[in-house]
């Protein structure tokens, strides 16, 4: 009796009306009919899609900078911040002539997120010092196998010609910080 919610079960003899069950069945039918005229709680996905928030936490994107170089430098902070341990990466050194491909001296040669492990908490985005990883309003597509859920760089890095807009995810403080063009981070 910790919650005061327990009920004592009484098994008393049913009267005539209760024994023929008709009133109870009719009561049930009335409830069902009532629900036919209510607004339905579900939508017919995928024909109809529900409106989602602009800062919805869906599929990740690895951003490129203005000239199209990958921002990620494989620092491992997203992986260490990840509570589900969904992120793994292997770093490599940038070679001469690849300055347009990778922003920093070091880059991620492989970068994988296991979408089955990911809980979409957004801590990777918060940990990233290079504004490289963001969660977007895209929903992860379903698959029959498990392998398809390990997203590599082919699915995560944004294509140069189809940039993913993440400006809505940036807080006013970040946008203000980006105004200071003299800081190395914003160059």
């Amino acid at each position: 009796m910790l919650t005061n919610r327990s009920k004592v079960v009484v098994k008393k003899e049913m009267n005539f009306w209760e024994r023929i069950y008709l009133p109870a069945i009719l009561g049930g039918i009335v409830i069902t009919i009532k629900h036919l005229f209510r607004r339905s709680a579900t939508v017919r996905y995928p024909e109809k899609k529900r409106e989602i928030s602009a800062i919805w936490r869906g599929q990740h994107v690895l951003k490129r900078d203005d000239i199209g170089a990958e921002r990620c430098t494989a620092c491992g902070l997203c992986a260490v911040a990840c509570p589900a341990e969904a992120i793994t990466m292997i770093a490599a050194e940038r070679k001469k002539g690849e300055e347009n491909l990778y922003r920093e001296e070091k880059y991620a040669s492989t970068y994988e997120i296991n979408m089955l492990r990911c809980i979409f908490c957004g801590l990777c985005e918060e940990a990233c010092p290079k504004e490289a990883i963001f969660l977007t309003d895209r929903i992860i597509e379903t698959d029959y196998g498990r392998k398809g859920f390990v997203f590599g760089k082919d699915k995560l890095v944004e294509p140069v010609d189809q940039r993913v807009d993440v400006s809505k995810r940036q807080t006013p403080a970040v946008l203000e910080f980006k105004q200071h063009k003299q800081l190395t981070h914003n160059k």
Partner: protein
Amino acid sequence: MAKVTIDGATIEVPDGTTILNAARQIGGESVPPAMCYYSTLKESGGKCRVCLVKVAQGSTKDPRPMPKLMASCRTPVMDGMVVQSITSPEVLEARKSVVEFLLINHPLDCPICDQAGECDLQNLAYKHGVAKTRYEEERRTFEKIDIGDKIKLHMNRCILCYRCTFVANQLTDNRVHGVLSRGDASEISTYIQKAVDNDFSGNMIDVCPVGALTDKTFRFKSRVWFTNPMDGHRNCPKCSGKVVLWTKGNDVLRVSARTDQYNEVKEFICNECRFEHKNMNDWTIDGPRHIDRDSVIAQNHYERTDLQKLKLEIDRQIEFEKGKQLPEPNPSLTA
């Protein structure tokens, strides 16, 4: 023997001991941080200024306080000396400023740097520094130079602690690198592009408090907090052979010398142990390396704890906290 009081705790140490070493004998929070002083390298210290302390009373004979904050790694104790480390707001303020000065030309490329996670400057800045920089000018940069196939030099990250030159002078038979130029332009370099390949030169990597000298064989292999550090040893004719193996699965990614609680190597290891034996079978594993609980490397790192010892340590800390004197309140505020 000299009796010295540091943050309320009194200890008797032999004459000529520095304040820093006396504080280390007491232990606990009042040990001043040190970026250039290194217990196993002679003549080191006196350059970085992070170990500044306030000497509230010079000695029993001359009880006047010292006019300025003193570098504790270079100041010998006197009988009856009273020192304030963390109990003096002035010292904490000075440390904050010194960190700011050290970071003025530091590139802050921690996401790229292999030292991140075990970097003395990073830890110091987290503990004593401020989160924001006030520096807007262009940072000092240097041309990259190659100092051999084992050690990578990033001069931009250097804080000019001179530890690596002491290693070369005191451990190797022939020093081929040093600090060239003066003032703002000083840089660690070799004279006419020469490779640093002395047998004990690899210890420069361990003594470097920042990521200026890093292991080229470990370069970008893994972040240090994703590795599994183990104590290991082998029979080495040249050195003690006692090392730390930074492993991932069955691969030895890096070998380094064992450091003490102040991140200082007591037994230096030879280059053969450090660079040539990257195979688990070459080593006898002693067990997991002890990693500080508040270090990022302690992520997913488990080790045996001696509960009896742990209790003694906690008791000692509690005893130490009891003896501490709070700083005197500012008279202008209380009047």
